[in-house]
């Protein structure tokens, strides 16, 4: 679910478990249609929400953070160039793999990594359709369905402190 009316840039989006699973199913469907190596669904602050596929030896959390920074930097370029709207998609062409990144809403992006045997046109068409479906899922949420206390309760902070003491030597 999400707390927004117009998907404004600074609005917070909170996906419910049900929405997460519906989005995950859409990503599975997209991946099978375009035979992509990897799909990354993340937020513009650099956090990975869902991934499909695998790239051995690649830290996907870091990759997501770098993709979101790339997107944000390009959006800043758009602002400097006087564009009212951000660039909605980026395409990076490599010798073996290509990277296609598209904004879902201003806060979320979908990145598709595919090899050069797959045509860009096909990736664009199917990704666009998937993004429309993800938007419908995001719009269908209801704030009331989320119980915040279930995630961060009174004990949580003390366990975090304990956890930090354990991992920080």
């Amino acid at each position: 679910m999400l707390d927004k009316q117009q998907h404004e840039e600074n609005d917070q989006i909170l996906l419910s478990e049900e929405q997460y699973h519906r989005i995950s199913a859409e990503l599975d469907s997209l991946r099978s249609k375009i035979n992509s190596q990897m799909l990354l669904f993340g937020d513009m602050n650099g956090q990975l929400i869902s991934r499909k596929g695998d790239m051995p030896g690649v830290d996907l959390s870091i990759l997501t953070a770098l993709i979101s920074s790339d997107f944000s930097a390009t959006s800043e370029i758009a602002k400097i160039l006087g564009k009212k709207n951000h660039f909605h998609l980026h395409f990076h062409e490599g010798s073996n793999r290509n990277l296609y990144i598209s904004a879902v809403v201003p806060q979320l992006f979908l990145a598709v990594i595919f090899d050069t045997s797959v045509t860009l046109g096909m990736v664009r068409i199917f990704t666009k359709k998937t993004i429309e479906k993800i938007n419908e899922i995001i719009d269908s949420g209801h704030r009331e369905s989320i119980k915040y206390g279930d995630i961060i309760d009174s004990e949580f902070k003390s366990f975090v402190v304990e956890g930090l003491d354990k991992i920080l030597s």
Partner: protein
Amino acid sequence: MLINWALKEILLKIVYYGPGLSGKTTNLEQIYRRIAPEHRSKMVSLKTKEERTIFFDLMQFRLPPIHGKRPKFSLYTVPGQHYYAASRRIILNGVDGIVFVADSQRNRLTDNLASMLDLEQNLILQNRSLEEIPWVLQFNKRDLDAIHPVEFLQQKLNFNRVSTFEAVAVRGIEVSETLKTIIQKVITDISRKLNA
């Protein structure tokens, strides 16, 4: 903050801010060394050829699950030099907590103040402010000779009376304590917001 309900992950973003060469990257390098590899990512540094941060440094780490919930933290630094203002704005997007790393040396007071002002202005662009966001202040380089007394730095920089640390980041002194405190403040803040 991002909550991934399906994976029960709580993802939080901490940004190390401050003037150029105050020790932001050094803080991250020390944290990176102190956390076992199984709990952390690699550290990514986007640097110039002179080893100065051009965009950001980034590392992520996660805590052992807490009743099935999995807290995960992203630590970023900003480039301190004044002409990287746009990069700093980008990195501050969605920030949950800030560590301001001040350089204690006498000749850096103006730089500290300029960076603090820059931070405040960038937060205002996000409709936020230093009065409401969790942040802590680290007085770094306390081992050097030509430094201001802590009381003086408190008076000049700590308008909000936040927690302060007397650090020597290059030797790891007060680095972990700074991180632990900002994380506690962020969790308190988020808990208050979510349960309001």
